[in-house]
């Protein structure tokens, strides 16, 4: 699984992850406090300037925006059909600015930086006894490690269907897939415990 991070040394890369996330959160609130078209258009321009400064080649920079921009655009058109035009434009501008900046943050922050920030956010919860902050990194690692394994197993189960001349149905694939995956979980948990990694837990 390849991350959406982009190697580089732009201004955005050098800003700390925490600062970027705080600005993004603030932007999320502020954009919804105003309906002024001028201000919102300005926000879009600023976000676009940031996004196109991170050193991504223009073609792939645009490609990255496509999926979400498309949904935003379609919603705006849908909205336009039923609502006064400026309401639709306001929504379009807000979401576009937010998406541009969010994409820029994602592209300039490494997974390790993100995990550090999330771990920090989880510390207060840890004090409440709800979870262990270090588990965040472990859980992310586990998923990245085991997705390919699950896809292999999916392929193997489909082949077993083919070899036995059985038609592939969602339930007959999902049931063995889930059971086998859950059974692995016991072994993996034992391996983690044996290495003494989550030591202050039973």
């Amino acid at each position: 699984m390849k991350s959406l991070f982009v190697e580089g040394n732009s201004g955005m890369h050098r800003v700390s992850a925490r600062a970027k996330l705080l600005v993004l959160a603030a932007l999320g609130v502020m954009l919804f406090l105003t309906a002024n078209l001028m201000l919102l258009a300005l926000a879009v321009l600023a976000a676009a300037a940031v996004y196109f400064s991170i050193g991504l080649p223009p073609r792939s920079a645009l490609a990255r925006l496509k999926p979400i921009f498309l949904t935003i655009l379609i919603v705006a058109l849908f909205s336009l059909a039923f609502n006064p035009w400026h309401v639709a434009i306001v929504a379009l501008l807000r979401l576009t600015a937010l998406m541009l900046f969010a994409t820029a943050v994602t592209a300039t922050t490494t997974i390790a930086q993100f995990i550090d920030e999330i771990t920090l956010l989880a510390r207060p919860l840890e004090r409440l006894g709800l979870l262990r902050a270090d588990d965040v990194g472990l859980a992310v690692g586990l998923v990245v490690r085991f997705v390919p394994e699950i896809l292999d197993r999916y392929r193997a189960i489909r082949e077993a269907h083919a070899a036995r001349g059985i038609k592939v149905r969602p339930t007959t694939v999902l049931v063995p897939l889930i059971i086998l995956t859950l059974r692995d979980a016991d072994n993996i948990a034992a391996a983690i415990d044996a290495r003494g990694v989550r030591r202050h837990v039973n």
Partner: protein
Amino acid sequence: MSTRDLVLSALFAAIIVALGILPPITLGFIPVPITAQSLGVMMAGVVLGARRGTIAVLIVLVLVAIGLPVLSGGRGGLAAFAAPTTGFLIGWVLAAFVTGYLSERLVKSEQSALVQTVGFFLAAMIGGIVVLYACGIVYLAFAAQLGLSKAFLGSMAFIPGDVVKAFVAALVGRAVMVGYPLLPVRS
């Protein structure tokens, strides 16, 4: 949380991610993709129960946030939280919780196969459709300035697919319960 519960949740998160390999179907007029991943959310609740199911979905959202392309169609990153569909995405957490909670309450091991399947189906319908849509529609109405009634109407296009998913989740839940009993029993 025990190591086993953490690993169970993480592996189920991996299953939800794997379901994203199936390409999303985007209906021309609706901005939210039809995705097999919401089936994964229902199954997380049905199979793992409320607590572990919720954590599985939270792990998926963490993966999205840190920039891994784990949503159907290889999407991901913080921008996924700035889309008109974000309400559905966040709603997954509540959906898994409610589906899991109801599964734990409605389904008992001594019931007949039919009753168990119906129990799981109701849990998946209420959690994975009623609760999930409430989150998704309210957010869509607000963030995209669409108005509740239009957001509601637009979302109805998912209903047929999602009812089928709830049904599949119920069958899977019942079969896994027979083959690998796991659901926490509530005392």
